[in-house]
């Protein structure tokens, strides 16, 4: 089946829905393609808030937010992106409120704000209330509100369509190909502009806060064309996942006064970040927790977790402002934060890297300013690069809103200026070939077993602490898994709702993301932000103050070519010199 729209948006999370809304406001005909149903996207799992310098509780300024974002990113953040972001997010939060988002309120009726890791007043002096929140289900409310606005706007939704290919010819994106889950049919979508906003790929790790569906599909499709993925070595482990499960425990729990404690009951963050303690950025807190565990001060049967302590907080704060996480701890661990210490451990959470874009979401093809006409990306899928080497809490929701909006606006503007470019004669050829190869594969390999081995090995070899020999071994492990993947079997012959086929296809995408991440991480011989090398323990600005661009070597399977891109060290009006990162 064939469809035609001015602008196509892939993904119906915060970035995709915002892009769809703004493309429609820009006068374009818009379709949003999602592999789930809308409102199922993982934006809904975000809990703690969206950072913006509204100053509703305490004095705040966008310049402070810009600085915190850059310092939080260990100076790999592009400062022009950080400046645009810190300014734009203020209006964007008000816009969400005008769309009806039910924020929690201050006594005066303004949007409520609370503290969050790495967000400070006066360039690092003390923690500041910057996170605008709706209890601890801010992401849920953003997702619902933006979907509601798209229903109002009449956006076309193609639910449960898996994108299998992007059509890029002569430097211009012409549309995409997708598999319809309900029928097994291949659909082609012709478009003037496409916005990619399909989220991250946390499922390559064993312990993750990410949904089962976050498998890096569109990153992989981009990468398979020989186009680059930026800064893939920078992957954030959130310090507080429920022990063993990895389910996210919001940083808002520390923003509201929660304290991390080791087996001795010690508030150990005082030793690692004397000024802001438990509210240090995530990379630092995660490393501190793992260090406590390695030195024998972990809790639980395997001594591989630490405690978060809320017992000193009033019951109404825990059950009110932190209702979601209270429910999760009670449901899954049988632990009640009102009176129990809750066992947590770091969990794979967020990709700072992704498809490189400019400030308007336009997808880049190299480190020298080349781009794909008509192709945009936003959200976790993209690397603009706002988050640099480590993202601050709340800046993911802000990223979705600010850069989803910019990408949607730019896509509509581009669509207004151009005619449809021709589709090739048989755009679906490669997608059909890939899917049929999987369907007819008669091999003995089980996709679930390969996936499990990938997840465990990535956790062990490319996790929070990394070193050269482990990662070199992981390169070989991934090559071996890729070989075995060619012999994977799909036993379900049905066309309709063939979830076995989909999971096998997603595993192929995951292997690509893991390949790009491991090669990028092995190549970067320094420690910066979330990328911590035991064998290169210092940050090395002289050699490594630059973005990695990883390209799949199309001539040599399993090989990755590395290029670089300059960091924007100045914003439009402000610039912050790289300094030692101390909290």
């Amino acid at each position, binding site marked *: 089946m064939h469809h035609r729209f001015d602008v196509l948006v892939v993904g119906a999370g915060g970035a995709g829905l915002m892009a769809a809304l703004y493309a429609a406001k820009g006068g374009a005909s818009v379709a949003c393609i999602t592999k*789930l*149903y809308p*409102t*199922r996207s*993982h934006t*809904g*799992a975000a809990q703690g808030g969206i950072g913006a310098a*509204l100053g509703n509780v305490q004095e705040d300024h966008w310049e402070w937010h810009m600085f915190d974002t850059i310092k939080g990113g260990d100076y790999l953040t592009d400062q022009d992106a950080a400046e645009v972001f810190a300014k734009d997010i203020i209006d964007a939060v*008000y816009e969400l*409120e*005008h*769309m*009806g988002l*039910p*924020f929690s*309120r*201050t*006594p*005066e*009726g*303004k*949007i409520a704000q609370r503290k969050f890791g790495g967000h400070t007043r006066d360039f690092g002096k003390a923690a500041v209330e910057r996170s605008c929140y*709706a*209890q601890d*289900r801010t992401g*849920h409310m953003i997702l*619902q*509100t933006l979907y*509601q606005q798209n*229903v*109002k706007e009449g956006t076309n939704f193609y639910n449960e369509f898996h994108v299998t290919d992007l059509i890029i010819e002569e430097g211009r994106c012409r549309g995409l190909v997708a598999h319809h889950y*309900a029928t097994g049919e291949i659909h082609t979508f012709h478009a003037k502009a496409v916005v990619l906003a399909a989220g991250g790929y946390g499922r390559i790790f064993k312990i993750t806060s990410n*949904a*089962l*569906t976050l498998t890096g599909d569109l990153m992989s499709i981009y990468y398979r064309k020989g186009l680059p993925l930026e800064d893939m070595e920078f992957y954030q482990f959130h310090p507080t996942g429920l*022990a*063993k*499960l990895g*389910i*996210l425990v919001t940083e808002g729990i520390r923003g509201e006064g929660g304290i991390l404690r080791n087996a001795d009951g010690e508030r150990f963050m005082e030793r690692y970040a004397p000024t802001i303690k438990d509210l240090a950025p995530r990379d630092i807190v995660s490393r501190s927790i793992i260090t406590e565990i390695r030195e024998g001060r972990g809790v*639980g*049967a*395997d001594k591989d*977790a630490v405690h978060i302590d809320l017992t000193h907080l009033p019951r109404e704060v825990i059950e009110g402002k932190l209702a979601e996480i209270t*429910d*999760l701890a009670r*449901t*899954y*661990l*049988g632990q009640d934060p009102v009176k129990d210490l809750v*066992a947590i451990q770091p969990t794979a959470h967020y990709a700072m890297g992704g498809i490189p874009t400019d400030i308007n979401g336009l997808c880049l093809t190299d480190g020298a300013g080349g781009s794909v006409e008509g192709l945009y990306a936003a959200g976790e899928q993209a690397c603009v690069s706002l988050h640099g080497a480590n993202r601050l809490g709340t800046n993911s929701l802000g990223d979705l809103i600010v850069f989803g909006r910019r990408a949607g606006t730019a896509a509509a503007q581009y669509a207004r200026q151009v005619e449809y470019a021709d589709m090739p004669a048989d755009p679906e050829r490669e997608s059909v070939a890939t899917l049929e190869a999987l369907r007819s594969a008669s091999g003995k390999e*089980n996709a*679930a077993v390969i996936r499990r081995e990938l997840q465990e090995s990535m956790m062990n070899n490319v996790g929070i602490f990394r070193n050269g020999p482990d990662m070199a071994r992981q390169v070989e492990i991934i090559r071996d898994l890729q070989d075995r993947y060619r012999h994977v079997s799909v*036993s379900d012959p*049905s*066309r*309709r*709702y063939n*979830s*076995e086929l989909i999971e096998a296809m997603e595993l192929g995408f995951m292997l690509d993301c893991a390949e790009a991440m491991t090669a990028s991480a092995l190549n970067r011989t320094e420690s910066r932000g979330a990328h911590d090398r035991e064998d290169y323990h210092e940050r090395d600005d002289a050699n490594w103050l630059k973005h990695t661009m990883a390209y799949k070597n199309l001539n040599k399977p399993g090989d990755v070519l590395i290029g670089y891109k300059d960091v924007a060290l100045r914003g439009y009006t402000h610039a912050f010199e790289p300094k030692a990162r101390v909290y």
Partner: protein
Amino acid sequence: MAEQHIPLDTHTTPPMRVNVKILRFNPETDKKPHWETYPVEAQASDRVLDVLNYVKWYVEPTLTFRRSCGHGICGSDAMMIAGRNRLACKVLLRDVVKDGGTLTVEPIRGLKVEKDLLVDMDPFFDSYRAIMPYFINESPPPAGERLQSPELAERMAHSSNCILCACCTTSCPIFWVNGAYLGPAAIVQAHRFIFDSRDEATHQRLNIMNQNTGVWRCRTAYNCTEACPRDIPITTIIEEVKRAVMYQQA
């Protein structure tokens, strides 16, 4: 399931043996649904979703169901588990089955079964769309936020918590016999806007609720309240909407 087991507690619990009995149906090959039973070894602290994934990944790859977030926020995996609607990722084995016992898993009722535990969600979302599920206030907004007191914000705290999983609507006996009834989930969504002090379309929405597909169909069976994985007091919310319709104000 020793091979792939991920224990949920920091305390290891002894494994239990469970027969997972699943109502299966593939319209391409089957005339009618049939039960199939899969014996599994699992931890008491495993989620039902972990067990379904185990069966799919290592025993019966054709088993089909929706799932995504795995912790009760996306609303994909609503099923009838041990006779009650729940999210498979938000119920632990120990709460629904004993060691050596049988656990039944069926699709939610009242929506067409497409394959195994996967149903057609379109009618459910059609009912959602029917209540004008979007904020309406056409007056020009202020430069900052519209003010709302914490007390007024609290009025929609429960109804805005809905994740559209359909556990409530598909547990409602009225919905089973009359699919035109908008159902509890759509009424909860309407409540979220009717009781929002900033929204200006109260009367339009109350009129929708007053139609013969609206709130008056509810016979307060309380199934919806018991089914809600978010602990939303749905029956109470429906009663609040009924009162608002009677008095034409929220």
